[in-house]
């Protein structure tokens, strides 16, 4: 067979293809970002502040206990993780001003006006034997309760969801619905022999 001239390849569209691939990978590959549930620890104990016990009304506290078997009790009532969110939401919102649920104090807030801010505090106690997974689930459910309330308040006052608000409005909503979790020193089932 005689040698024949192969026609020159048209490579003009090669760059288009390569850019297509580039965009494809850019969109599909998830960049490994740092994500999680952010929390603030209370400032370290100082000597003089140690004696000061804050007297909190019983109705203002939601006692969440997680034992070494990863079972949850809320104010003495055994619960599943899935029920915790609604319980916490009801606790923070107290829509019918139930005398057994936290009291509210009316506070002026920029951008919202007077808002009845709940005095409720979640007291979270875990056992030393609690699994980290369950701890994060509980934190997550409490966060979810607060986030949903914040979304509702945002929709009511600003007509948008919390995440869509600008930072000033977000601050106002955060003031209206504070996230108050207080962590009690952990129990240790393995040492005491009985959970107290």
């Amino acid at each position, binding site marked *: 067979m005689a040698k024949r001239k192969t026609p020159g390849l048209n490579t003009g569209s090669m760059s288009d293809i390569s850019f297509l*691939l580039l965009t494809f990978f*850019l969109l599909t590959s998830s960049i490994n970002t740092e994500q*999680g549930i952010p929390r603030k620890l209370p*400032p370290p104990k100082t000597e003089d502040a140690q004696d000061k016990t804050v007297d909190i009304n019983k109705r203002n506290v939601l006692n969440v206990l997680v034992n070494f078997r990863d079972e949850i009790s809320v104010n003495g009532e055994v619960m599943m993780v899935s029920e915790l969110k609604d319980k916490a939401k009801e606790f923070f919102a107290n829509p019918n001003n139930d005398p057994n649920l936290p009291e509210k104090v009316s506070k002026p807030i920029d951008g919202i006006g007077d808002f009845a801010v709940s005095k409720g505090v979640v007291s979270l106690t875990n056992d030393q034997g609690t699994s980290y997974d369950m701890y994060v689930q509980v934190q997550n459910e409490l966060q979810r309760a607060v986030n949903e309330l914040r979304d509702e308040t945002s929709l009511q006052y600003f007509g948008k969801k919390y995440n869509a608000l600008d930072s000033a409005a977000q601050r106002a909503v955060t003031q209206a619905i504070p996230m108050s979790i207080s962590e009690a020193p952990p129990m240790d089932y393995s040492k005491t022999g009985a959970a107290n």
Partner: protein
Amino acid sequence: MSRFKKTGEKETPELNMGSMSDIIFMFLFFFMVITTMREATLKVHFNPPKATEIQKLEKKSLVANIYVGAPISKNENTLPPGEVSVQLNDQTIKAEELVADVRDFIGTEKESRDAIDRDKLTFSLKVDKEVQMRYVNTIKQELRKNNALKINYAAGKRETAK
């Protein structure tokens, strides 16, 4: 059939190398995007718990990681009773040096940042979901003592509620 007309001897045409650079750049960009600089190689098993209400941390340069999990190799230092290791920077720490090591770690991490950013420094607790809370509590206590109050419980994304 003039299309298949045979024409005498021909030389092979040169390949057009113009688009080679495009491909190279494509790979370059791709790898630039997906690589995350991890300064430490993992020495513990870390399988994060899944959660729905996670937030992304704003600045990666303002995050210091503390890994807690079962050691990958048997030679690592563990905390008693010997199932869990704590990794700071590149090494697992010994139980008796935990307090000092965590303090030094917080100190060096804070010092390596500008004075303005120091308060924004977040300590990300990358804890395996099987770990018992006693180890996490110990570390949280140390962080609190050393005034490193901004923490983050690293978690993966879960779409639906349990």
